[in-house]
């Protein structure tokens, strides 16, 4: 066969809709993968699904799929995505509706389920990786979701059965990209080196434009041309595991050894042990060669035997966070911001509010790093105060009192010459992780045809 071309249509939940359209039109691709799940996305989607059982999948799904479905079908471009989030079957239903509305037929859609393991986690009560405690100590009643990171096998199975579109919930990000490589080149499930190379390609692609100039451009030091017309990456994968990363012709941004060198280590700890459900990939000897402008050849990745466990992300109701913000400018602006923050905290203490954590940030002065962290530090012209407090109470009256106090002090009762106050209250769903034996997780594939 000719070289396999896989594109990344989205690198995060809210990525640009236009990428998919451009890639399908001009990418000369065989597959398009939309990676749309962050750590917490499924837990939040689960909450949306509880409110409305029809929802719980990616909110941009119809906007992404509607403009490309017909063209993708004509061009035989297959679509793989984790936009199913907490409701993959709901996402599929939406796609079927889009297909019918456009008069598209002969479309085979595979939906992967089985990543939702909340009941199993409640039964197994495994140890939480972050704190060594059992899930029951966190409180089963607090848990809202538990999703195992599935690997490539359900997607490969779906493609083998002729699926044009594969919709999933939680699947490890690189596995979304590795699946078509395994399927097209018929890679054995224990060919660890090739699986490592495919995982390397997936890892470099999964964040979309992070490898083509976004999160990279730094004027005067790392100038990137045409960031406003940046294209996500396209991978040309060879049977022997070598691959080339490129992007759409006439697009902005860049694919270079320097962009690849940053992305290969993104969210990686030990580069010899990048663990996915499919393989323990080894990126430690990866090499990049700029073979021509915006074409980088990647070699040297390898792999080792996969683990016996799968990672599970557990979403739970953690706390409530209340924030208030207000700006100050001119002489004494930092001191005025400090005074307002001090007033807020004093009053919350005076009324014995159950605050478990607080953070005072003076944006422009000490919000990211502590004050005087910067060399050649200068006093700012203006700052923005942000007061954030956490409470574990569920009592609505108490939460209302705290919010009222924060809102009152950033909006009326603080120091002189304040501007642009805002306030917010948020229920926090946090994530902890655990490992559960691989053989306890069974995926299911549902085929539907339009």
């Amino acid at each position, binding site marked *: 066969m000719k070289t396999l071309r896989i594109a990344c249509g989205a690198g995060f939940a809210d990525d640009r809709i236009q990428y998919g359209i451009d890639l399908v039109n001009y990418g000369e691709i065989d597959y398009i993968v939309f990676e749309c799940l962050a750590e917490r996305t499924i837990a939040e989607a689960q909450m949306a699904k509880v409110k409305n059982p029809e929802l719980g999948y990616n909110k941009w799904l119809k906007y992404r799929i509607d403009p490309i479905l017909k063209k993708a079908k004509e061009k035989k471009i297959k679509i793989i995505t984790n936009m199913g989030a907490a409701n993959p079957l709901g996402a599929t239903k939406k796609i079927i509706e889009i297909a019918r509305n456009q008069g598209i037929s002969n479309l085979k859609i595979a939906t992967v389920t089985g990543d939702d393991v909340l009941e199993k986690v409640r039964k197994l009560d495994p140890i939480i990786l972050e704190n060594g405690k059992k899930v029951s100590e966190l409180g089963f009643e607090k848990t809202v979701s538990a999703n195992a990171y599935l690997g490539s096998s359900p997607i490969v199975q779906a493609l083998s059965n002729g699926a044009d579109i594969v919709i999933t919930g939680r699947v490890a990000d690189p596995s979304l990209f590795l699946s078509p490589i395994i399927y097209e080149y018929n890679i054995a499930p224990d060919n660890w080196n090739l699986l490592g190379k495919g995982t390397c390609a997936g890892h470099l692609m999964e964040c979309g434009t992070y490898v083509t100039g976004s999160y990279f451009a730094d004027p005067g*030091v790392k100038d990137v041309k045409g960031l406003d017309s940046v294209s996500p990456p396209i991978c040309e994968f060879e049977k022997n595991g070598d691959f080339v990363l490129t992007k759409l012709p006439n697009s902005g941004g860049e694919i270079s050894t320097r962009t690849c060198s*940053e992305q290969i*280590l993104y969210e990686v*700890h030990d*580069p010899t042990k990048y663990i996915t459900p499919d393989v323990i990939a080894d990126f430690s000897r990866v090499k990049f060669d700029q073979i021509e402008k915006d074409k980088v050849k990647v070699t*040297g990745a390898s792999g080792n035997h996969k683990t016996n466990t799968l990672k599970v992300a557990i979403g739970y109701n953690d706390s409530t966070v209340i924030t208030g913000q207000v700006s100050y400018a001119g002489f004494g602006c930092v001191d005025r911001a400090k005074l307002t923050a001090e007033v807020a905290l004093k009053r919350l203490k005076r009324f014995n509010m159950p605050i478990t954590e607080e953070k005072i940030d003076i944006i422009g002065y000490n919000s*990211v790093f502590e004050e005087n*962290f910067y060399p050649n530090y200068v006093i700012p012209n203006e700052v923005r105060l942000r007061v*954030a407090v956490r409470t574990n109470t569920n009592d609505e009256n108490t939460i209302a009192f705290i919010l009222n106090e924060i809102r009152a002090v950033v909006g009326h009762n603080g120091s002189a010459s304040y501007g642009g106050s805002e306030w917010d209250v948020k229920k926090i769903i946090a994530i902890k992780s655990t490992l559960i034996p691989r053989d306890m997780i069974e995926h299911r594939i549902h085929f539907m045809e339009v």
Partner: protein
Amino acid sequence: MNVKYLRDYAHCRAGDKGNTSNIAVIVYRYDNYEMIKEILTPQSVKKFFKDRIKGKVERYELPQINALNFVCHDALNGGVTRSLSIDKHGKTFGSGLLMFPIEKNN
């Protein structure tokens, strides 16, 4: 004296996993790789970020791409999903480390 910073020799990217941040440092020219490696140690990086990194720091070396990877534990104020910080992901760690002062011995 013309003070130099890491930004003059390298570029960086920070990533997050739970409460751990990793900062990749890519040295522009291999000529400077050993010099930067000598200066940027797990100890010196932890000291530079002061209270921001509460746990240990580990370093991995990828000389073929001029890279060092610093893995900083307990550095994200509880992690992306519950941190009270503005930069919950700690993505600014990358540009933060570029302010590391570099004094050449030779």
